[in-house]
Each structure stands twice: as structure tokens, then as C-alpha cells.
């Protein structure tokens, strides 16, 4: 009898989000050219290979760009964010050399001019919503 194999999750948003729920930030890595991609991709955008595998990232990165948002979408308003309580969204450059959009926590929103591009960040996972709508959101903390 052969060993049971663990089914490989597809390279989809659903699978990526499932990993987030398990507190894992996963990248899709091209076995042919070595490119690592977050968000995941089923086809390598660099060499067009379809030979891809999931790898867990280190969760470390640095701030590439950011904004302090005073007027956000409904799901952020429901979390208590508004003009008086703004939040930060940003683009994070991961150690693996790929970038991702994420909530950024642990920064002083009252002094946006003092927030430094290049600041080191560590992955975090924010759960929000009730029942079936409960979801894990990708965040990074300063």
C-alpha cells in the first residue's frame, strides 16, 4: 500500500484565505524559475510554467507605501473606523521579494508624516465578522 498523500490545495483565493485562517501567509512558488508570489498564481507570470508549489513565507517584510484612511468601506466602518479613528492600509514588501496589500497596525495615525517607508513589519491576522461572514484579514504590525 502506498502512503496516503496530502492533497495539494489549489492556487486560488479561497485556498489562500483558508491558510490565512490557519495563521499562515503562504506564497505560490514556481518550481521552474523559483519566483515566489503572494497573492498566489496558478501560472507563473515570469516563465509561464504551471509547476507551482505552496511555501510558507517568513512573515517578515517592510513598508513600501501606505495611507491613513479617514473614510473607509463598510466592513472597516463596522470595525469602528471613521474620521475620528482612521486606520492604515499599505503595501508590504515581503522578505521573499513579492509585495502584498494589507492592513497595517501599530502605527501612530495622528502623525502620518512621521511614518517611515521601509519600516520593518511582521505578519498578523485580524479576525472579523459573525457566523459565516467571519473572515481572517491579512495585516502587518509595526
Amino acid at each position, binding site marked *: 500500500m502506498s502512503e496516503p498523500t496530502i492533497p495539494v490545495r489549489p492556487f486560488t*483565493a479561497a485556498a489562500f484565505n483558508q491558510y490565512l485562517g490557519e495563521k499562515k501567509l503562504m506564497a505560490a512558488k514556481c518550481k521552474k524559475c523559483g519566483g515566489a508570489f503572494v*497573492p498566489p498564481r496558478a501560472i507563473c*507570470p515570469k516563465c509561464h510554467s504551471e509547476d507551482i508549489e505552496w511555501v510558507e513565507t517568513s512573515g517578515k517584510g517592510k513598508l*513600501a*507605501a*501606505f*495611507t*491613513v*484612511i*479617514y*473614510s*473607509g*468601506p*463598510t466592513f*472597516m*466602518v463596522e470595525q469602528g*473606523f471613521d*474620521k475620528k479613528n*482612521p*486606520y492604515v*492600509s*499599505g*503595501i*508590504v514588501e515581503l522578505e521573499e521579494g*513579492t*509585495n*502584498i*496589500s*494589507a*492592513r497595517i497596525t501599530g502605527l501612530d495615525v495622528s502623525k*502620518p508624516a512621521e*511614518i517611515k*517607508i*521601509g519600516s520593518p513589519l511582521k505578519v498578523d491576522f485580524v479576525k472579523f465578522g459573525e457566523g459565516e461572514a467571519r*473572515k481572517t*484579514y*491579512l495585516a502587518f504590525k509595526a
Partner: protein
Amino acid sequence: MPKSKSLPRGVVVVGAGMSKFGAFAEKNSRDLFVEAFKEMTKSVDKGLDPSIIETLYIGNFTSDQFERQAHIAPILTDAVGLLPRPALRVEDACASGGVALRQGVMAIASGMVDVALVGGAEKMTALKTAEVTEALATAADVSYEIPAGFTFPGFYAAMATAYMHRYGMKPEHLMNVAIKNHDNAALNPYAQFGVTIQKWMEGRIEAAIKKGKPAPTWSTIWDFLHDEAGNPTVAWPLRLFDCSPVSDGAAAILLVAAERAHEFTDHPIHIIGSGQASDSALHDRPELTAIPAAKIAAQTAYEMAGVTAKDIRIAEVHDCFTIAEIIASEDLGFFAPGEGFKAAEDGVTARNGAKPINTSGGLKAKGHPVGASGVAQAVEVFKQMRGQAGERQVAGDVPVALTHNVGATGSTCVVHVYERRN
């Protein structure tokens, strides 16, 4: 990427018109499109028998969300009496209008049709602001960008922080773009905000006095623009006056085969270059201080046209946010990377400057009914190139002009180059 080919036959604009842009509770997109169509018809020098129009391409981002009406192309075609002609709604977010124009150019260049109507329409103000924000957000990557809490002002604000970090720009520099575009829109009767920021500020002070409230103490527009009460932060570093408005409006242009131009006018405007490119979500790009697809689209259009950035006399660029105009002015090759904000500060891009940008008032002040914007840009260059821009007409000849239309954060970019030969 494969190289661009030249057009197999010439395409010219012989008519162009737009509705007034603004917030019109009593008008839907078909009413606005009818207005634009009538303005276009009026502009054809030798008159237009509409029955010769063979096909329609209509830019519209999301009437499904804004008006709960999908499949809008045949409805707009019916509204202007052009059934049963084939009609296509073209959707590439805020670049829908510019991409519709490119479809029209390709249809005529291919030889399949001689006369095409290119339109754009969007009715945005029927929804509440929060709903509009969420409808627009669907132009981004809803799987991977929106869960981060990003809004459209937020995306462009993030680009601004990257740009500030790299080039030393301050948030104040962005205000130069808003001031200039309001100055231009004040001379455009079709603009949503046909008022300078100075007049806007004075209006706010007068209104406060009339209501018996304490008058704001702004003495210059810079006081006003720096004050949260006058110019609140939306997504730092962007404030209200860094953002284009929510708008209703439509635009229409008539494209014909160059060999038939003489039937319509002795002063056609030739479309000599067209380029379009696609890109990823913002986070997936190698740089955040430029829009790569805009550079590719521009390069493609310049090569097809046989011109360079230096040859462009005026440009209408996609200033959905002030930072977007600065980045566009660099992506198009007008200024070196990191120099665009200085050019705006020095007045180079003003109507009387060396490289006028957004003489119409741009999306910022003319208004941004998203699917119409790319077509309205062509309306402005058509008028400027033919010396018909009224009070805002630039001095001297405009032999070559350009339009630059962006979808989302630059996931779609489309650039056209225009030439006047007589």
C-alpha cells in the same frame, strides 16, 4: 511584448461634444448621452445625417451598480435613434471611454466600417457616497486589495507616499495641480466645478456669514487648503481637493475613415497613435512611483504616431487624484521621474505654460463620470486643436495633442495621439 503596428488606414475625428458634467438628480445616463450626441452633431462643420453612422462603441464602467441597469449600449443607441446598429458597451473601469475610442479606431482602420460613434456615459450620483465608493472599489482586485481596507483615494495616497519618500515631494505640492485645474475649469462651461478655488473659498466664507456662523479666517487659498475645515483629509496625504468628484455626464465623438473626412469638415483631427496596456494590482508592480502600463501605452502610441513626448503641445491626462496627474506627466515622458511635481509648481503645465495639461479642468474639476471621461478628453483636444476652446483656448497652434486615460490604479492604460494637418 509584441510591437505595435501602424494603422492600415487613416482615422479622423470630425465631431465632438459632451453634456455638462455635474450632479443631476433628474437625468439618467441616457438623457446625458442624448445631450452629448446633440452637441456632437452640432459640431460637425458640414452637418451630419446621423443615419450614416454604422456602429457604436460606448464606454461605461458600471451602470449595473450605479443605475441598476446593465446592457446599456442598445438602450443608449435607441435613445439617439440609431437602432438597429450594432453597439458595444466597453468596460475597463475608468479607462472605459478611452478604450471605447480605441475600439472605434480599430473598427475603422480595419476597413470594416467608415463611420463610428464613440461615446461614454456614467450616472453616478443616484447612490449614496459610501455606495459609490464601494462600486468604484470593484475596479480594484476585490480578492487581494480591498480586504486590506483600501479605497481608491487610499491607493493613490499610497502611491503619493512612495513618491514623497523617493523624490522629496511634500503634500502641499499636490495642491498646485488642484489650483491649476480649477483655474481651467472656471473657463469651461461644461465643467462640474466651473469655479476657481479662490471663488470656492470666498463662497464658503459668505455662506458662513449668511448663516450667522463665525466666518472662517482664511485669507489666502493656501490657508483654506491647509485647513481641515476647508479641505478635510480623505486618505492621507490626499485631501478633498486632491480628489475628483462623483459625477454624472456623457460625451460623444464621431470617427470616420480619413478618406471620407471631406464630407464632414475641412478641419479633421487625425488619430495617429493608439496604445493600450494592462497591469496587475498595485502591490504586484516593480515600482509604485510610476504607472508602468501608462509608459507602455504611451510608448506604443508614440511609435505608431512617429512622434515623441516633445512634440505633444497639450495633453488631457487622467487626474482622478492630483498625484495621478504628476505621475502621468512623467509616465508620458514630459518630465523626468521626480520632476513632475516641480513642473506643476513652476507653472509649466498651466494653460499658458510650455506644456499645458488638462486645459479642460481635468477629471479633478471638469468632473469624472468615469465611463465618459476618456471620451471627454478627446472632446477637449478636438476643440483646442481646432481653436474652438473659447476662453480657455491655448495660445498658438496645437498641431499634436495627446489623451491619457487610466483604469483603476493603472491596471488599464490607454493613450491616443492626435494631429491637425490643415
